[in-house]
């Protein structure tokens, strides 16, 4: 293969640093590891700006996943990763291997995977390949996640024209380390320690996957099928159990998963982190197919493989574990002190490159960027909003609730018996941590429409919303993993979006004091002229120090009061779901978001959630505005609501913006207001919980049984 996908300046740079012309195979190695997917050459510089430290952060970015500390020896490992390109070509396998890949990232830290969340974006189902892609992706996630026994506990699904033919498949995995478990890093160090490749045999699948994911999809997308890997969840499950069993033994120095760019990236990155080198004997790699070339073995992205760095005196014990689980375990080389990536095949040295050149040696690109104008909401459009549009929108939202419920039922959400708040039933999923009184809240949030209209504000909004989602279920936010999905970075508008989104996430994360501990960047999304909306997905984890802090979103008791913490005047139609769904337009200024207010809200909430019985239910205002918030609280609680809105602005009903709707008992009202006052927060009383009546005057007057008759 030799050189592929590299620019002339990169080729010159490699030759200069190396002091010689690399051979053909070395060029292949350099090409895959310098791909955007592996080297982050367009994003590295910017991601460095993030807040990555806090007292509770045990591991920030730079490893296979981040770690936060829950106290008492319990730690949570998490990361989000995209698998967009493979899913566009072969949705079932693309999504399945996306799950397998992120699960192995968590496993590399020595943690047991305990939950998955999937954040999905598709084009409208009635167009082109979208239905095929949608069903394939949902099927692939269900296939892999269910089989390995890791519950899918949350996520989002959004349909939008710009994702036609280039769906976004971002999967977040959560792992748990209990007090008796060691955590590991992807590190190769200590001269003479052995490299043990475990799991599946190496085949010819997924060759050049990393490079394929670093270029734009074209019309001939189906021809890229050989670049897509094939997943075997059964093997994945065995690998989880075997690796966890091995991780409990002494003598393991480091664990690293094999993903994009296969052995090349796993070995060179581990060596670089351990400030060592590796010597690899390719002949020792168990091969699934005959006569594989050195290049094929090195670059294969075959799934369900892990690399363990093991002390020689312990190697037999470790291998025994993998034999027990009927998995391959082969010594494929050793750690050397010279910081080089050296490969032997059939007795010949065929690669000898410095690890520094491979891992941090690529050129950094900082292409030009340019802001762009977006259309605002015309007065014609605004004036054309009629009563019937609201009725239609109610139908859309109810249908949405029913569809989502049906999708989540395809995933095993209850295996591992920790899921307290299942998917689709709240702002965040909530899991208990066995052996403690603690729980964790997990969410993913992203809003491509907002980020297209105003990348920075959209990103700030996404972080603030994720934070509110954790708060709403009674959690305290602790960490972020960000899945950044963009188009072609050489398009100045796209690079502008990227820069602004990173700035927005950074600002929000700093003001709210929620560090970024891991993440992923996916560029080159979109096909031909179509480019996707900038779509950062914010994965967030929070802690419930006591599981009794749990607040659920369903309305509880008729007669209780309903308050909006926030302000009706913040709600806006810009970028709203209402304008999109009813008028098929993505226009206007995105909603106002005040980070200082969000910070006060967070501080207020972190205190009040500990007082049982003040906030009986809570749900944030997001897509679909207060209308959606009330519908969902009614649907989940099987109770109605009677609300009075000022009749001068439709924004109050379907406009979007910051805010949380809460239910309080009459007896608790005074205390609630006093505490709000302490934090200088605004709230307005807007209604009360009913039995079956669902009234939002002056717009809607119906009943629960009528609304959800198809339930």
């Amino acid at each position, binding site marked *: 293969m030799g050189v592929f996908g590299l620019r002339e300046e990169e080729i010159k740079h490699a030759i200069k640093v190396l002091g010689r012309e690399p051979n053909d195979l070395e060029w292949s190695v350099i090409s895959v590891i310098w791909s955007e997917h592996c080297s982050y050459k367009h994003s590295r510089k910017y991601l460095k700006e993030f807040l990555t430290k806090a007292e509770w952060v045990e591991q920030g970015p730079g490893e296979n996943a981040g770690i936060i500390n829950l106290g008492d020896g319990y730690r949570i490992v998490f990361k989000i990763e995209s698998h967009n390109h493979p899913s566009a070509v072969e949705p079932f396998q693309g999504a399945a291997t996306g799950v397998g890949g992120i699960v192995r990232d968590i496993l590399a830290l020595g943690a047991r995977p305990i939950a998955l969340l999937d954040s999905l974006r598709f084009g409208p189902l009635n167009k082109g390949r979208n239905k095929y892609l949608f069903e394939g992706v949902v099927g692939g996630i269900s296939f892999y996640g269910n*089989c390995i026994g890791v519950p899918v506990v949350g996520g989002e699904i959004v349909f939008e024209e710009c994702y036609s033919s280039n769906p976004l498949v971002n999967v977040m995995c959560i792992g748990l380390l209990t007090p008796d478990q060691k955590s590991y890093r992807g590190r190769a160090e200590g001269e003479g320690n052995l490299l043990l490749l475990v799991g599946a045999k190496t085949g010819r699948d997924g060759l050049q996957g990393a490079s394929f994911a670093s270029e734009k999809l074209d019309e001939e997308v189906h021809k890229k099928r050989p670049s897509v890997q094939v997943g*075997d*969840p059964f093997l994945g*499950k065995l690998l989880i159990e075997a690796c966890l069993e091995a991780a409990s033994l002494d003598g393991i120095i480091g664990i690293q998963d094999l993903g994009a760019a296969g052995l090349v990236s796993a070995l060179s990155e581990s060596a670089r982190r351990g400030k060592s080198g590796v010597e690899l004997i390719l002949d020792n790699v168990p091969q699934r197919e005959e006569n594989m070339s050195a290049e094929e073995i090195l670059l294969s992205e075959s799934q369900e493989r892990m690399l363990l760095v093991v002390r020689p005196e312990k190697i037999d014990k470790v291998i025994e574990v993998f034999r027990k*689980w009927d998995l391959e375990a082969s010594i494929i080389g050793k750690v050397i002190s010279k910081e080089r990536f050296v490969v032997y095949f059939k007795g010949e040295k065929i690669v000898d490159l410095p690890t520094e050149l491979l891992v941090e040696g690529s050129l950094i690109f900082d292409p030009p960027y340019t802001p762009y104008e977006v259309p605002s909401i015309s007065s014609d459009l605004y004036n054309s909003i009629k009563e019937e549009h609201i009725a239609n929108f109610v139908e859309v939202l109810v249908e949405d609730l029913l569809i989502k419920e049906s999708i989540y*039922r*395809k995933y095993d959400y209850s295996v591992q018996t920790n899921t307290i708040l299942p998917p689709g039933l709240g702002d965040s999923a909530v899991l*208990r941590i066995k052996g403690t009184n603690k729980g964790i809240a997990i969410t993913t949030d992203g809003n491509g429409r907002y980020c297209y209209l105003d990348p920075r504000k959209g990103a700030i909004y996404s972080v603030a919303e994720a934070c509110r989602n954790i708060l709403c279920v009674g959690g305290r936010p602790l960490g972020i993993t960000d899945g950044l999905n963009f188009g072609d970075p050489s398009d100045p508008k796209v690079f502008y979006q990227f820069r602004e989104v990173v700035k927005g996430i950074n600002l929000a994360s700093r003001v709210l004091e929620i560090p970024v501990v891991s993440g992923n960047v996916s560029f080159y999304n979109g096909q031909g002229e179509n480019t996707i909306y900038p779509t950062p997905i914010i994965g967030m984890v929070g802690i419930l120090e006591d599981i009794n802090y749990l607040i659920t979103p369903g309305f509880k008791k008729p007669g209780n009061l309903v308050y909006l913490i926030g302000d009706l005047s913040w709600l806006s139609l810009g970028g709203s779901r209402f304008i999109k769904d009813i008028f098929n337009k993505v226009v206007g200024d995105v909603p106002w978001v005040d980070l200082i207010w969000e910070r006060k809200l967070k501080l207020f909430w972190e205190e009040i959630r500990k007082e049982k019985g003040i906030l009986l239910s809570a749900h944030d205002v997001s897509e679909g505005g207060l209308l959606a918030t009330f519908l969902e609280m009614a649907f989940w609680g099987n109770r109605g609501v009677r609300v009075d809105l000022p009749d001068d602005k439709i924004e109050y009903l379907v406009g979007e913006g910051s805010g949380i709707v809460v239910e309080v008992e009459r007896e608790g009202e005074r205390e609630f207001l006093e505490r709000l006052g302490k934090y200088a927060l605004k709230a307005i009383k807007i209604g009360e919980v009913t039995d079956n009546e669902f009234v939002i005057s002056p717009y809607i007057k119906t009943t629960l049984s009528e609304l959800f008759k198809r339930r």
Partner: protein
Amino acid sequence: MKVGIVIFPGTNCDMDTYHALKIVGLKPVYLWHKEHDLKDVDLVILPGGFSYGDYLRAGAIARFSPIMREVVDFANKGGYVLGICNGFQILLEAGLLPGAMLPNITNSFICKEVYLEVLNNNNFFLRRYSKGEIIKMPIAHKEGRYYISQKELEELKENNQIVLKYFGENPNGSIESIAGIINKRGNVMGMMPHPERAVELFLGSQSGINLFLSFLDEE
């Protein structure tokens, strides 16, 4: 009672079952599929999961594993065996219970809480429930549509072998809404729903606890 939980490659409800048994005060042991030793247990549970990846057909390969030879012997001698979900499928494949499993009528994986009616409580496993009791627990499977020939179905009914039925909705299209059956002798039971996921109220239901409590009393 000493309870053993079998682990096949691909089993994924072993730890959940262990946890449920621990809650009622039992200390179960794990039984590895490659072994022949049942470790002197009084009751064997085949837990849920995807044994051997459910390749070929759910439960079809697991029944050939070494431990299953012992489990069949054990059952034939009157030992108690409970199969949950994939474990039920394995019991059918192994011939310890009659009938077969087809893919769900929806042709998709279904995970949800369902209601069940206890049809027959006159057996070791369900004796702590009352006849006609309605209980709630999750199902999570893709091949759970129970099927049996008309003739054998009549026989099941005659012998009161249908012990659990889906109440209200029949989620997977099982014949006569069957969710769980027992053998004639009353020592081998299979059920598709997951009682081990219904032992703590804050996870949605405690309906499963009485099943596990019944393992306590046996002298």
